[in-house]
């Protein structure tokens, strides 16, 4: 809201440098966003609040400033040049919808010499950033910016039947606004109508058909009070935003319309206007003054400091409240109508604090009563996860939760995406059902900017409509492509690959002590056929990893192989973790045997693992695959697999001949199950 310092002087005598004034405003919560000197005046840009419509005019701002500076508001006088005519003979006002229009006042001024405004008025209008139009229009604007009460001037002679009817519009009715725009009206909208037609959109804008023109002689001043919600809805529905609507929708002062009308009439008197006697004031249900109880001890207990009751009384009185001291330390406070924001004791305490000065309230740490903490194991687990992923060389990213529906389509999924009704753009119209889309976006961004490799992860929610409810799942996704890491002279850079990703998944599940997971070869629409694994945990599918499908890569204009994994952390974190357990360090040495086999390529490691596990060799501590190769020395379709088997007895040292027996059992079993044979020189005793 623009405030002219010169204009404020109509209400109070301010004698302060602007910099000091800005500080005073800041201290009472009226932030000065900017100010500039203009034409010997100072224009302040004051930040106002939705609940303080009283500060949307110079009078309200002056009242705040007067309270802060200990000044008194000057009294306003509105002398009228009157005729002998009575207003009741000139116009008939009826309110047909008292809810939407609780009060309607009007005055009539005849014989106005329409013309340019006097210089002082033009200056005021220009200070508000508007162009002066004519003395009548300028006066209506002047009253609005002075008092925050919007008023409207009709050409009295254009009001058919000299009747003002405040009613809801009829469905299908139309009105041409002052902006020369055809407005389609609905029965939700309140209009000011004459006998025949709507002449104004109540509280929003006047109609062209009754507008004041150069030929206007008599003016009907409307100064009314409209329901804020109704004005807001009408303004939104029609897309017409005006200074009047801005004030009505925040809540005007229901007690003020007569004074605003008189103020306008008084100004019209200055332009040879003659004011007809009396005022129309239709106010069927007079609003009661609200009262709020204010207790001294509550001020102290809320602010943490005792404030002198003299200060309390003076501040509130300066702001327009009426205080009645019911008993020591308790006041009955009458709330003026212009303070629609004050409803409770706390609101009054805020007023006291604002003018007392926040900086004078002491700084104390709250008493830290010990209390039961809200435990969030999820948070701890995420912390562990992130550390581990950093360790594995993944950089963290955060993407918006939105998704382009066109790209969403490529992720054929059994998840129902949730559309946003008013998205910021059509490309962000869905909530994401996967994090992979965003990560691929990041891969494209970075590879287009010269990154040789990208290993990234994101932890965040996906969204899905299911069973008539909106569900959120916390996901972890990782993608990798190319080779990352600065290449060191001593070692090769690491190529992105499925097994790095798989190793990372295994490590993080192990680190979080979710031991009993397994991977299963399964196809999934996000991944290339035969290039994906499902991650199972106790009978539930909790994740996937694999090579991203070509058509998805195409949608992100990616040409190189991208590996991705996605794990549903919401599912995972619900599972029971294994307790950590210490186990004794082995006392007796182990015996290890390296054995190399040649066998068919299509036998999977998992199959071998299952067979070996079924064997249940008592002292086989563990076995690892340490080499795997195929090539010229190995027959077509076969592969060489080298295992290291480690045997150990807890109670004594194993003898070589005992181990021989176990080893032979392994060899026999693999031969029987898969037709594996020992590779030449492949059996090395150790």
């Amino acid at each position, binding site marked *: 809201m623009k405030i002219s310092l010169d204009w404020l002087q109509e209400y109070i005598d301010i004698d302060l440098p602007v910099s000091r004034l800005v500080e005073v405003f800041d201290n009472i919560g009226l932030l000065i966003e900017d100010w500039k000197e203009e034409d010997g005046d100072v224009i302040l840009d004051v930040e106002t609040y939705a609940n303080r419509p009283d500060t949307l005019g110079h009078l309200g701002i002056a009242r705040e400033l007067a309270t802060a500076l200990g000044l008194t508001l000057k009294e306003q006088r509105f002398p009228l040049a009157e005729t002998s005519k009575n207003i009741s003979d000139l116009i008939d006002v009826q309110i047909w919808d008292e809810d939407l229009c609780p009060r309607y006042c009007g005055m009539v001024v005849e014989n106005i010499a329409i013309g340019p405004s006097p210089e002082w008025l033009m200056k005021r209008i220009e200070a508000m950033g508007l162009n002066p139009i004519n003395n009548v229009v300028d006066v209506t604007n002047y009253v609005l910016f002075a008092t925050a009460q919007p008023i409207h001037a009709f050409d009295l002679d254009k009001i058919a039947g000299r009747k003002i009817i405040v009613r809801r519009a009829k469905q299908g009715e139309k009105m041409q606004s002052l902006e020369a725009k055809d407005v389609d009206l609905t029965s939700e909208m309140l209009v000011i109508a004459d006998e025949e037609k709507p002449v104004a959109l109540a509280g929003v804008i006047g109609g062209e058909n009754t507008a004041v023109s150069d030929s206007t002689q008599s003016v009907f001043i409307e100064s009314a009070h409209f329901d804020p919600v109704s004005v807001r809805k009408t303004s939104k529905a029609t897309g017409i935003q005006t200074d009047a609507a801005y004030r009505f929708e925040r809540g005007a002062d229901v007690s003020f319309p007569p004074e605003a009308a008189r103020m306008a009439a008084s100004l019209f008197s200055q332009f040879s206007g003659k004011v007809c006697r009396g005022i129309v004031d239709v106010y069927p249900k007079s609003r009661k003054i609200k009262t709020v109880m204010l207790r001294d001890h509550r001020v102290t207990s809320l602010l943490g400091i005792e404030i002198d009751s003299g200060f309390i009384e003076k501040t509130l009185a300066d702001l327009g409240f009426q205080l009645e001291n019911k008993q020591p330390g308790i006041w009955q406070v009458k709330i003026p109508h212009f303070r629609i924001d004050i409803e409770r004791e706390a609101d009054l305490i805020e007023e006291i604090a604002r003018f007392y000065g926040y900086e004078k*309230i002491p700084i104390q740490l709250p008493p830290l009563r010990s209390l039961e903490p809200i435990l969030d194991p999820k948070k701890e687990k995420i912390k562990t996860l992130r550390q581990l992923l950093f360790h594995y060389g993944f950089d963290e990213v955060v993407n918006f939760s939105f998704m382009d529906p066109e790209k969403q389509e490529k992720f054929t999924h059994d998840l129902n995406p949730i559309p946003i*009704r008013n998205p910021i753009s059509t490309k962000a119209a869905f909530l994401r059902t996967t994090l992979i889309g965003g990560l691929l976006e990041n891969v494209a961004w970075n590879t287009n*900017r010269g990154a040789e490799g990208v290993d990234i992860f994101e932890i965040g929610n996906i969204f899905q409509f299911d069973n008539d409810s909106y569900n959120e799942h916390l996901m972890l996704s990782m993608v990798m492509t190319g080779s990352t890491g600065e290449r060191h002279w001593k070692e090769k850079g690491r190529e992105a690959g499925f097994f790095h990703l798989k190793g990372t998944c295994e490590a993080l599940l192990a680190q979080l002590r979710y031991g009993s997971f397994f991977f299963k070869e399964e196809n999934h629409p996000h991944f290339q056929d035969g290039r994906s694994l499902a991650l199972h945990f106790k009978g539930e599918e909790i994740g996937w990893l694999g090579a991203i499908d070509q058509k998805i890569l195409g949608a992100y204009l990616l040409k190189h192989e991208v590996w991705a994994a996605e794990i549903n952390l919401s599912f995972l974190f619900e599972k029971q973790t294994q307790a950590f357990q210490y186990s004794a360090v082995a006392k007796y040495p182990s015996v290890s045997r390296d054995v190399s086999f040649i066998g068919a390529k299509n036998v999977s490691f998992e199959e071998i693992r299952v067979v070996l596990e079924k064997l249940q060799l008592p002292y086989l501590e563990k076995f690892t695959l340490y080499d795997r190769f195929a090539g010229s020395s190995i027959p077509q379709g076969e592969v060489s697999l080298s295992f290291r088997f480690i045997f150990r007895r807890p109670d004594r040292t194993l003898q070589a001949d005992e181990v021989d027996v176990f080893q032979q059992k392994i060899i026999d079993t693999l031969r029987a199950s898969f037709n594996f044979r020992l590779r030449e020189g492949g059996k090395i005793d150790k």
Partner: protein
Amino acid sequence: MENLKIEIQNKRKSFEDALAKVKDRHSLQDIRNEYLSRQRGIITGIFEQLKHVKPEERPEIGNLINDFKNHVQERVLALQEKFAAPKKVLEKVDLTLPGEKKYWGAPHPIPLFQQEIENIFLRMGFSIADGPEIETDYYNFGALNFPPHHPARDDWDTLYITDDVLLRTHTSPVQIRVMEKKKPPIRIINPGKVYRKEAPDPTHLPMFFQVEGLVVDLGITFAHLKGTLEYFLKALFHEKIKIRFRPSFFPFTEPSAEVDIECTVCGGKSEDCRVCGGGGWIEILGSGMVDPQVLKNVNIDPEKYSGFAFGLGVDRTAMFAYQIPDMRYFYENDLRFIRQFSLK
């Protein structure tokens, strides 16, 4: 016996002659072997002959031979030192080559900064609570004292899914959910993503992170609000930072305060400071005493309990803390940007 004496004499001489020709440790080694080899050496040969000497003469000849042997040993040793192989020089290794670098992933600056904020409050005995990002109108607005159809909602421009379901515009709904379940004392922070209908520009985004906090207990005052937030800001920035509490308006707090910190970029001295716009202050936190109606909405007696709430934008604050000029950088996820934070 005389013959042997002469032989020793001769050998001694030829030893001296040979020794005079020695140029390096290899020829010295040869001479040493020639004379001192245990199996075939000349001295061993002479000792062999001792058995042919009469027993009574043996000590004398024996002494002579030993004497010769000692002489040879001494001379060889002396020359060995002279011709000693130069000290073995280690192969030259270029120790100025760069050390191995472990490739360590970098955290995204927002979760990183959020964790810094969380840690400060955890030290003050706060718990962390979170809640859904998809919320109902009631939790996001109604319970927080936003009147329906009120322009106050315009500041919280909302992304809607249906009339009643929306993306939370702040994390305050979590506070309502906590207060519904838990009686005071309550001391929580609520970090998380929030959403606004804002087209991305350098200072606005449709999604960003917030940390909000709530304290409800017996006897909580505005002075406690000031104390808590001042402690927090000093811990987050630095001990000496200037802080200003300024009246403001939020529907869910009464009295409300905006908390500004001094602009550390220009110190309030630059008219056209990019960060503070010349005002010298940066808005960091919104805060206030919890509105009695909000407490009533969750069945907490505002006559008995009071509390304060606060909130800050993680992105906005991180922008200021790291001097990042454009908020959109956070969501471009350019690794050249993100990897810098591996050092944080």
